């Protein structure tokens, strides 16, 4: 169980996150939705210790993130929104680094790593550097690394970006299977179909504030005959730019 209480983050005068309070249960896939700058990444980065919140607290399985940072970090694995990290390392070196970070022996990780490498079709590329990979290949490398420790909490920031359809499908299956084992999966996305397919529960953020927290089904039930896209755009703020599109592309565009 992850408990986020009154979490706030200010960047100078700008309030990136305001008094966010959430409960994320084990065995759940939890999605964050929101426009650009809504506070999704700030929340996830606070959870994984990349940034320091201005106020509020986070506990993971009863452990306060600040007081037990090391222990909490050991429970979490993170897939960042841009996979441009450790570019000088080969894929195998990157996985070895993560194994060392999580104190896992070669015996403990090799079987899991080999299966993940096979799943993502990376077998021929394990000795190549991340710098030489495409965006999608880097993303796959990082996803494999994150799963090596079989983390209790798996956090992914817009994970489907840049993945080919097969890899995207495999990742979604992995996320479902991971949650089915009783572990927690938290991710952010702009893709509403993905949110609808995967999330047990979601949070919609707008300008740093939580505007909805509940299940996708409840949200759809509350707004009968409307698509999730329409509901989301009404909640998060809609700008009808149809006339501008006509101006730019002409009246006959499809």
């Amino acid at each position: 169980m992850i408990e986020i209480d009154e979490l706030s983050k200010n960047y100078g005068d700008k309030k990136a996150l305001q008094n966010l309070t959430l409960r994320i249960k084990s065995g759940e896939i939890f999605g964050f939705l929101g426009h650009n700058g809504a506070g999704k990444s700030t929340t996830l980065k606070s959870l994984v210790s990349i940034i320091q919140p201005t106020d509020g607290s986070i506990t993971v399985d009863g452990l306060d993130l600040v007081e037990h940072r090391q222990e909490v970090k050991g429970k979490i694995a993170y897939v960042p929104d841009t996979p441009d990290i450790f570019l000088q390392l080969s894929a195998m070196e990157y996985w070895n680094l993560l194994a060392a970070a999580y104190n896992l022996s070669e015996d403990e990780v090799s079987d899991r790593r080999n299966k993940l490498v096979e799943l993502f079709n990376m077998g021929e590329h394990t000795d190549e550097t991340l710098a030489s990979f495409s965006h999608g290949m880097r993303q796959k490398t990082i996803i494999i690394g994150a799963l090596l420790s079989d983390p209790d909490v798996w956090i992914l920031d817009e994970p489907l970006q840049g993945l080919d359809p097969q890899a995207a499908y495999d990742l979604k299956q992995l996320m479902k299977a991971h949650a089915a084992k009783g572990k927690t999966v938290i991710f952010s996305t702009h893709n509403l179909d993905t949110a609808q397919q995967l999330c047990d529960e979601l949070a919609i953020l707008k300008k740093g504030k939580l505007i909805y927290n509940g299940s996708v089904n409840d949200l759809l039930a509350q707004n009968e005959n409307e698509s999730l896209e329409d509901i989301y755009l009404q909640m998060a703020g809609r700008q009808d730019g149809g006339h501008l599109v006509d101006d730019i592309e002409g009246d006959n565009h499809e």
Partner: protein
Amino acid sequence: MNKRQLKALLAVNLRLVNPQVTDRYRKKGKNGSDLTRKLQLQFFINTLVFIFIYGATMFSFDFSKLPGMFTFYVTLFVLLALSQSISGIYNIFFAGKDLDSYLPLPFRQKEIFFSKILIVSSNVIPFTLPLLIVFFLTGWRSGIMIPLALLLAIVVYVLVLAIILFACSLIVFGLTKTSLFRNHQSVVMNLLIAVTTVIAVGGILMMNGNQYSETGASLDRTPIAIFMPLFQIFKDAFSLASGGAWLGLLALLLVFGGLLKYIVLPHLNEQLTLANTASVDGSKKHKRVQRSGLKQILDSYNFQLLKEPNLLLQVLSNSIMMPIIFIFSFAFAKVPNNLPVKWLGVFFVAGIAFSGMTINQSSLIGNLISLDRMNFEFVKSLPISLKKYLQRKFLLGYIFQLIINTLILIVATIILKLSLAMLVALICGSAWGTYLISQHYFRRDYKLRLTNWTNVTQLFSRGGGNLGMVTTIFVSIIVGVTVILGYSAAIALLPQAWMINTIVAIIIIILSVLILKFYQQKFWKQFD
């Protein structure tokens, strides 16, 4: 300490700070621990080569009879180590863009600290190896057996380096805890590096103004009291004074080490997270700017690149401090201040040689293209002339370097009380030399360009690494000094000075044409 984590982190950092060497070994099929071993071996061999070169240069000094020279060299290289350590610690711990990659991982604080501080020390060692040589030569000439003198020198060198690194860590980590730092991160660090550089350069100039004094049979400098206990360790290893020096060293190490262990290390994660948060701070006000015209926008963009935190001062420090230290250490000579006109040519050549000593792989002109990061690839896709784009960049880098060199030469002229005519000759020589040498480093940056760098140390260590940089400075000084001495001797001793000056002028013109033609053909032409 978790050795496995430390080893894993060290392996990553070794690759990060040696990107080009790493790529070279990868192309030869090296990977994983094989690659790490190769990188370590390379560093070790380079260090040995340097010990040999420095040793050969300093061999003639009998430091055991020259306590003033001993303390002069120790002060020089301690100042250099302080300045390099402070900028190194800030770069590796705080200014790198890799914090986001480390912070989510459950590495222990001790391992992160030691892996990073070892990398900082690997950057500082090449600049401070002369200390080791001075220690060894002093011990050996004082009658200590070679193996014992070597061991003693290594132990004291490691202790001194550790004390410097620990003290600098305390300064940098102490500063980063302040709210002033959190609100004005790059300003505070730039100020710190600037102050360190000014103190170091000021200290060097002051020391150089020190009177020479007769000590026994030799002409020595006035000893610097604070480093005399170190001299005692090597001069009289088993005396009471030597024991006091050992105690002092150990006490400093324990105090600084203890402060680090109990004050810095327990909060390292928090501090790095906080510093990282400040660096992703989105509080900057949206600035309204109105520029039109491609040239104006590109010039403004290139100026913005210089605002990379810490870069400018690091560049200045490497372009000013290291050459000054090395020039003072290995090539300084008293120059008469009332020289006739026939010496103008020598000063022109000295200006060219000076450019060779001050421009190196860490100069702005040698990094300006890589500062573009991925923008450079994007610019290539735009319908603008890449040649013109690069020419604007080159011009900016050249002017920047010329201003630095001119300022140093003006200061040197004042100190040496040279005439205005000689200063003009020096500046003209430096302007021409800077132009030619800038061509080399600009092309080098293009050839070795790195668009995914995470901290400036990575940029500076491209090619041959820091040892390569020191080699370049060292070789430039040796070649420069040899040429100037030869030319001076000819002017002073031979009757036909005008003829010698004419011959030198012809050689300079021919060489310049050849160099310009070479870079036109090999570099600029590809963008036509």
